[in-house]
């Protein structure tokens, strides 16, 4: 019997090799009409699969991968084709009936069913990395714009989602520093340095923060003169040191030499004076945290002793302080210097900057002067206010225009009989009001050198006016040494009753005793 019909009997299974995708792709059940095409836009892409049926879509949480499950075997060439034609697909690979797509950037995936297939829509999400970067830049901007709270708010959100991120922690430390919370900043910097002990930049930043509350000695010297009045040479030596936690002690010794050809002594006589005086002050400074500071002071001078207290709030964009003093040595007037006068005071100061463009300050003070045995030699109130506007120019040089109001009003002046039928004032205090307008140019010349120059005009309530000019130079060769020079000239005196010009020049040298930051050899 001839098995003729056996010719058609070639059922068999088509040889395929599961391990060789190419062979499987050509094997049974793999339709030959599977195609893929892509339509791409800026942030979206539609990958159109024809000839296949999707059963499920399995994207990863990070949006970087999606696994597409099909109802039938998928051709391996699809993966290669996708890699070739798609800009948003970084890699593609296939299994028997699955396709894995890795995207270039995090993406959202959804599917549109089509007649003979489906479209996988890939929408690229804004890159988390960029969002984070933008946020940190914004935080820095806010920080530099003295919007510390705004910076902290933003940072808080980031830190919540990424609590272990060292960079964000560093940024928080920077904000602390900008917020003048140097202790908190230093603490954070120290912590960071433990992880990266070789980070020299961080070491320096830490030292800079530490310098702000490190023990220091400051010496100052200032010469001042009011034409037709007096000349003063002042100096001081101040030292401060942290003694425990948020408590620092500060000691200060002031010295002044006064030369005045015509001065009224407490007994009413008038004559020249040339001599010196000392005063000292000890402050206990409490860091009350949350930008609050409290200071308790003890003053001492010849035969006098006084005390004071101050409560201050300061943030980078503004400050507020309220202080009160009793028998605080007063060197505001030559008569007071000569007679070792003191004053009791209550002072309120507020300052604020707006968008790093407008600067406003206001001070209100009430003082009661004591002189010799007279505790009520004079009472004055003072108001000073200022408004300053920074020119909106993008330049390292900062130019500002300012107006200042400085007014003092004698509320009561104690008069003494002069023995010849008249009276004399123990303290020649009078009303004074000075309006000043100036233009100030400031620039950080280098990392170590800062200077500012200003010039303007001032006039007082009597209609007298004169040019004002000032110069300032600060030089910080190292973190622990600061040298500052300043000079000032005003065509009118800032003291009531004086008509000569006023000028002064000063020098300050600060030596900070920072402890060296421990660094380890990374190698």
């Amino acid at each position: 019997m001839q098995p003729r019909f056996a010719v058609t009997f070639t059922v068999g299974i088509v040889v395929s090799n599961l391990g060789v995708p190419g062979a499987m792709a050509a094997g049974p059940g793999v339709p030959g009409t599977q195609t893929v095409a892509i339509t791409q836009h800026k942030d979206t892409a539609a990958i159109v699969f024809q000839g296949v049926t999707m059963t499920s879509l399995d994207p990863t949480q990070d949006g970087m991968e999606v696994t597409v499950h099909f109802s039938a075997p998928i051709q391996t060439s699809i993966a290669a084709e996708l890699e070739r034609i798609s800009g948003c697909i970084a890699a593609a690979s296939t299994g028997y009936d699955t396709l894995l797509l890795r995207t270039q950037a995090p993406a959202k995936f959804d599917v549109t069913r089509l007649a003979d297939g489906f479209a996988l829509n890939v929408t690229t999400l804004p890159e988390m990395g960029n969002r984070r970067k933008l946020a940190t830049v914004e935080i820095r901007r806010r920080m530099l714009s003295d919007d510390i709270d705004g910076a902290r708010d933003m940072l808080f959100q980031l830190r919540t989602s990424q609590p272990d991120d060292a960079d964000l922690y560093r940024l928080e430390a920077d904000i602390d520093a900008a917020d003048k919370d140097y202790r908190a900043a230093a603490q954070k910097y120290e912590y960071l340095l433990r992880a990266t002990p070789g980070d020299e930049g961080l070491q320096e930043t830490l030292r800079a923060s530490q310098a702000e509350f490190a023990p220091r000695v400051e010496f100052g010297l200032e010469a001042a003169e009011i034409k037709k009045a007096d000349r003063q040479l002042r100096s001081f030596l101040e030292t401060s040191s942290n003694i425990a936690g948020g408590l620092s002690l500060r000691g200060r010794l002031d010295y002044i030499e006064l030369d005045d050809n015509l001065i009224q002594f407490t007994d009413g006589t008038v004559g020249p004076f040339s001599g010196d005086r000392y005063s000292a002050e000890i402050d206990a400074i409490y860091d009350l945290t949350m930008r609050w500071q409290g200071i308790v002071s003890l003053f001492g001078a010849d035969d006098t002793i006084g005390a004071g207290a101050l409560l201050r709030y300061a943030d980078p964009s503004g400050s507020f302080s309220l202080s009160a003093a009793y028998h605080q040595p007063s060197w505001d007037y030559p008569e007071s210097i000569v007679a070792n006068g003191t004053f009791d005071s209550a002072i309120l100061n507020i300052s604020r900057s707006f968008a790093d463009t407008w600067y406003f300050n206001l001070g209100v003070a009430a003082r009661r002067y004591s002189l010799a045995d007279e505790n009520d030699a004079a009472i004055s109130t003072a108001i000073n206010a200022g408004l300053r506007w920074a020119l909106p120019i993008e330049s390292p040089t900062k130019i500002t225009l300012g107006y200042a109001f400085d007014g003092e009003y004698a509320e009561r002046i104690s008069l003494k009989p002069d023995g010849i039928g008249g009276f004399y004032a123990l303290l020649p205090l009078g009303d004074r009001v000075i309006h000043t307008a100036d233009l100030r140019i400031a620039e950080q010349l280098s990392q170590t050198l800062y200077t500012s120059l200003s010039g303007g005009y001032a006039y007082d309530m009597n209609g007298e006016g004169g040019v004002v000019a000032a110069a300032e130079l600060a030089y910080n060769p190292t973190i622990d040494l600061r040298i500052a020079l300043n000079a000032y000239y005003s065509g009118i005196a800032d003291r009531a009753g004086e008509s000569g010009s006023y000028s002064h020049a000063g020098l300050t040298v600060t030596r900070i005793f920072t402890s060296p930051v421990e660094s380890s050899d990374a190698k």
Partner: protein
Amino acid sequence: MKRWIPVTIVAIAAIGFGAAIVPTGLEQAFMSLRDKQYTQATQDFEARWNSGERSREVANALSELYVREGNPAKASEILTLYVGKHPDDQPALERLAEIFRDDQQRDKFISTLETLWKKSHNTELLRSLEKLYELAGREEDRLNALKTLVASPAAQLNDYETLGSMLTARDPKAAILIYLDAFKKWPGNIGTDTAQAFTALAAEGERGDLIKSHIFAWVRSQTGYNAIEAVAATLVSKHLDALALAATLTSGALAKSDPMATVLAARFEAKALQHASSFARLEKLRLAGNLPPKGDDVYIESAILTQHRDLALAHVEARGAESLPYWLQSWIVSKAHEANDTDFLQALRKKFSQPNSAPQNFLLARVELALGERSLAVTLAEKAEASEHDSSAGIAIASLFADMGDTARANQLLRRYAPDPEHVQIDDLAQATIVAIAVKDAHLALSMSQALREARPEQASEILHARALGLNGHGKQALEILDDIEAWTDAKELAVFEVLKGIGEVRDLQFRLLQRMIAEDATPLQRTNYTFMLNDFAKLDLAVSRDVADQIADDLDQPEIQGASRLSRIELLGKINPRQALPYARDAAENNPDQSAYLLLLIYKRLSMKEEAVAYLTGAIDDVDNEKTRLDFLHEWINLGITKAALPYLRALAANGDRQWFYAYDEALAKLGERDTRIAFLADYSRRTGLDPMFKSQLASEILESGAKEVAIELMREEATNAAPNSHAVEQLLYLWGPRPPSDGVEWIAARARHSPVSERNQWLDRLAQVGALDALIATASDWYVEGDRGVAPKLAAALASQKSRQQLQVLLTKELPLGTDVSSSTILANAAEDVGLSHEASILFERAAANNSKLIAAAGRNAAYAGEQTRAIALLQKAAALPDPEPEAVFLLAEALRNTRNANEAQRLYLISLSQSRKSAGFQNRRIELLSLVRLGRLAEAENLATSSNEPSLRIEYASALLDAGQVRRAASVISRQSAH
């Protein structure tokens, strides 16, 4: 004075005498000739000829002198001029003809003779001319000359013969008349050739009467064998075998009992199937001891066919194999085989059971081959070949190998013994041609057949030539030759069908076969063969006439048509008219289902009687005893459309392990929608031991096709249970799972990894990484990790980096760094460290890796800079910046570091370099450095332009950051604002 008179007379006389005796110029010329002063003679005769003397003497002498000089051209020129003046000078013409002849100027020679013939009408001259015409190929002139000769009283028999021969092709009727005249004029002198030519003409002219009247008389008068042989051969070539036999029987040679003539007569009788007469004639001759070897074939054939097998055998034995030419041996065996005379063949085998010579080996090889013992035949043929070096024997043995199917060997022998026709004896040409055709040596076959055709211009040669042409791709030409042969012989049939198959003329072949089916001269045996051939076609391309079907039905109605002949006819009839064939097929299937059931099924199928077919199969399958028939039933059942009833049979067969039945059962299950059964069957089957992996893969593939992926995965899991990570089995399993396996898949890989030998660990880690199972990778690698493990540490580090597991990576690197990692590991670890911002570690590792790749020093410096290690960063970045074409970022970072250390001038210089370097290439990183450099250089307008024109948000963010660094807070705010709005 008087004295002067005699003196004057004497002087005049003397002058006169002198003048008389001084030779003339001609005389001087001949004198010179006589004196053999040929040069002088030539000059003399030329002088005379040139002076215009055209006398016969001068012309003759000068032409001869020229001939003597070897200048026949001049000689003929002289004589031509002469005969022009003296056209009647026949000797001069003859001499001129001679000169032309000797100078081989045939045309001038003929022309001269023609001139002579016109003058003399000499028949001899005309015969000369006839010969010259023949030489010159001037057929018409020759024909005219012969016709003139035949018409002349001096005509000779030869003239008639020549003319007859010439007219044969041009004008056969005229030729016949010429020959008839010749027979009439010279009845006793007619030569064999003329008789043969006349026979051929008469045969072609269908003038049997002339043959009988003249040729029969002529052969009767001829007692030589050659005469009857020639005539008989001519008649046979014209397919007039009967006339040939008659002529032979009337021949004078037979009357004189010439043995060869007797053999010839017996051969014709045998051909006319008068075997008894043939045998009797030859037996008589044999008994008298006069049977020539050339009659052996006829004798043995007729003896076999007349049941005188013993005599045939005795004759063969008596002759001895050595005396029988190889072709005859082959012929004897083939005749016995054709007659299906196995007894004779067995007897031959017995007779020559101990062959001791090449011919005996050959004969026995033939016998064994005929008896189906091919291997024995091969052995014997090889023995014969080893001891035979004769060309004839070689060709015969080649033929034997060809018949045995060993065409390569046959070809080898043919090439050795018959490399070309020149090396083959004429008697062997046919055999050599047949072998060449058999081994498909087209070129040799053609050359052999051409030689054969020339040597033996007969039908058999023509047929072989046609076959050779067919083999050479000249099928149409071959068919033309074959179609010219009127009689339909077996050889022609073979050739025709062979050629038609060769040229792919299927329709023509079918047409001819169908024609032969109803041909009157077709025997039942032939029709059987035709049906086999027709059945070999998948389908008949022609509309078959009813006559053919009726003829087949007629045959089938003959009770002697049985066996394969019957089945073949039923099959063919089934193709032509299935309904007509159905009763025959039913009958055959009922009587012998093993042999005939398929036909019935085939016809059912043709008649679309599918249900009847299946019913028949269902009912009959249990009744058949033959296992093969049962299998065939199942095959057919499958083809008809399997039903559930067949499943148990198929399952049993598949269970035996037969792959074919496995497939059959599998497909049956698939077709019948028995999905679950099928999957279970395939799964069970794949669990068999000893299956090759590829087949297992196929099974898995088939299961997958059925949609049972989980089953396939389970199988592959079993397969991969102990397989190596890079094995085929694991590869397949992972492929099924896909790039991101399900959790149990990951667990499986992790488990395999955990329990793997040390040598496979890295590969398993790679597998875990490949499937994105980083947690498992980290857990496993952490377990394996020992400090300084060069294999595990990099993979663990890379995984930790991918997972952003900074702390874990830092711990790992803290352990690895002091150990001095190698360069390769350092690069991987460094990249991992950099990925998670472990800049310090990355810097150190990149510095180590830079030992092999100096460019990595920039990465080391960059990471040192990011780590804030300014001093180190400067040192490294200075190296990086010193490299040719330094990386812009390295230069920039160096500038940054120097700026931080208050080396502003150098920093500015480097910012310029980083700017120019960054502008050399495209890419985000270069744009970033360009931007940052511009900001640092205070070129904010350019920076702004660069940042705003970029599509990269991160570049604008970098720009804002750089502006902040530069104190450009307001500008930065603007950039940030814009970017936030995006």
